[in-house]
């Protein structure tokens, strides 16, 4: 067991992947000499050199588009978008090119690239640097989507992403980079595409991912002291979506709640709640409740920012009411 941070684990995953396969390279703004805006690639430039860590100009559409071409030409690019908030600028390259090439071209070729980025609230970074835009990705057929919540998953999901035959958008959470956990990276982990049951109980199933896992776990611990036992499912990847795990737990327990930092309307939580409601209808004793981000932009004010997304206290209160 070693103690490491989420950031360290991501770096280790990149290092191991680059060491094993020299087709893997990283490109993005400030990824090389600077070591990444959030320090993820620190030291890799010195280790692997400028050919493997390409510092790019501030040209997001071309960064993503170049990654598409590199992947088609046989390399394995890890392109980086400094903030997921910039994904809109690249949406043509991502949604019209990367996502559709295999299909449009009749299966001749795939686009095995990874787009690493980070999102979420927590730094008073304001309306254009704090969003949770995973729904844009999940809404686009052809793209895979991974969102690690733990240190071990930061490592394993990134390694997994780099083994995929299709484009993967890999969204980290800015509030998790300093998360420190004891990990054994050689220990078995759920496969790519499998959700993890982080806690099991009979009173309520909470489905979540990314940073909200930690809010949910905190709420679940507190609820446990009051005699409520909650199952917590961490999705790990949103595409592929491991609905089997969700179904099994929801059918067993009969009550479900979904927690997501993204905005509520037409968001990931909406998709999950709809699917649970449809597929587990006969087993549900309560409506599936969505606890999600408010349908508003994120303010720079700390107070407003904090309350724009689910807090542990809010998750706990709603869970308790659902179980009551």
């Amino acid at each position: 067991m070693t103690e490491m941070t989420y950031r360290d684990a991501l770096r280790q995953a990149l290092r191991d992947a680059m060491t094993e396969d020299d087709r893997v390279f990283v490109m993005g703004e400030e990824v090389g000499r600077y070591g990444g805006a959030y320090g993820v690639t620190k030291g890799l430039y010195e280790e692997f050199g400028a050919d493997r860590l390409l510092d790019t100009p501030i040209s997001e559409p071309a960064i993503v588009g170049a990654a598409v071409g590199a992947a088609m030409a046989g390399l394995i690019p890890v392109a980086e978008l400094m903030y997921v908030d910039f994904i809109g600028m690249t949406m043509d390259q991502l949604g019209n090119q990367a996502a559709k090439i295999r299909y449009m071209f009749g299966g001749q070729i795939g686009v095995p690239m990874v787009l690493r980025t980070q999102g979420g609230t927590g730094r008073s970074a304001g309306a254009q640097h704090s969003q949770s835009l995973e729904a844009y990705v999940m809404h686009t057929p052809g793209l895979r989507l991974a969102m690690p919540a733990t240190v071990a998953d930061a490592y394993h999901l990134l390694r997994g992403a780099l083994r995929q035959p299709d484009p993967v958008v890999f969204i980290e959470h800015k509030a998790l980079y300093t998360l420190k956990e004891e990990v054994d990276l050689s220990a078995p982990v759920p496969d790519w595409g499998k959700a993890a049951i982080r806690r099991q109980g009979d009173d309520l199933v909470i489905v979540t991912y990314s940073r909200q896992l930690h809010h949910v776990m905190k709420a679940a611990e507190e609820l446990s002291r009051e005699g409520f036992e909650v199952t917590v499912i961490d999705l790990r990847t949103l595409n592929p979506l491991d609905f089997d795990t969700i179904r099994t737990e929801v059918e067993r327990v009969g009550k479900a709640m979904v927690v997501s930092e993204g905005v509520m309307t037409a968001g990931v939580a909406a998709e999950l709640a709809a699917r649970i409601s449809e597929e587990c209808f006969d087993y549900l004793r309560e409506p599936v409740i969505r606890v999600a981000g408010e349908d508003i932009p994120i303010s720079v004010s700390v107070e407003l920012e904090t309350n724009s997304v689910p807090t542990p206290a809010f998750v706990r209160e709603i869970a308790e009411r659902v179980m009551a």
Partner: protein
Amino acid sequence: MTRHATDAAVAEPPRSNSDLFGLYRDMRRVRTFEERVGELFVRGQSAGSMLHLSIGEESAAVGLGSLMRKGDTFTTHHRGHGIFLARGADPNRMMAEIAGKETGYCSGKGGSMHIADMGLGHLGANAIVGGGIPAVVGAGLASKRAGEGDVSIAFFGDGAMQQGILYESMNMAALWDLPVLFVCINNQYGMGTRIEQATKGRALHLRAQALGLNGETVDGLDVRDVRATAQALLDDARLGHPGFLAVECYRFFGHARMDKSPYRAEQDETEGRAKDPVRFARDALIGDGTAPEDTLDSLDKEIEAEMDGAIDFAIAAKQPPLSSMFRDVYAVGEAEPEPVRTRIDRILAKD
């Protein structure tokens, strides 16, 4: 123009390129304001650490700011405090916004990177590199239609020179003969990337010329040069000949508050900071006998007091109320988005 009421020395904008005293005063106000923003952060009173100081770039802010007039509009990048202040912003409300407070220009919702004021024609600062550029094309269309001779100015950094949207915007401005000016504040760095590491074509103004705009590069050391070059471009822009101006300067400090610029050599910083437009103007004023040193000292002191007052104002101000959270997503009078809690309450009440 909202200026600090008690400070007579800062009441009038500079009237000409030869009004170096006025230009110095405005640059000093920008410098001191930015230093106080740094202090606000150190005191733990700012909303976050993503504060981008324009120290070293004062001649661009003041050279252009002193030429803008009522009816003109502009957008800025994320390093736009100085431009807005030079255009006449109230430092108190600016500082309050940077602290994320209710009395800030944007009610604490926007912060340093999203400050705006329609009263002064500030169509908004932007946290997306290049994000504010195309708006001046639209604003220029509106100015052209109004026919009052107003211009719209986009301010951005050298980093934005590599964003495609700049070229789309310049091309449209030229194609449609719009009263628009594109101003690149070339402080040599985009985060840790020096301009040489971002592009091979460093004669930035040639890119504009290639699209049919007027294009100039000016050294930002002497604010009078910046102002004179900008004046010529603006005069032409007001007549429907859009322009581009690159102001050469140096980013004195880190990219944002957490960045200590480990990627820059000491010599790079020493040389860069030697190009100090504020000190240059001060030396010039003393050198040619326009203003004795003690006059400048007392002016500086007055400005310090003014900006200390801005910090006090920001710290004393209140956080925006939680109830304001759902306001301004849509227009006044439209239904506000329904809070998640309200929705859940309704569902759970059905039991």
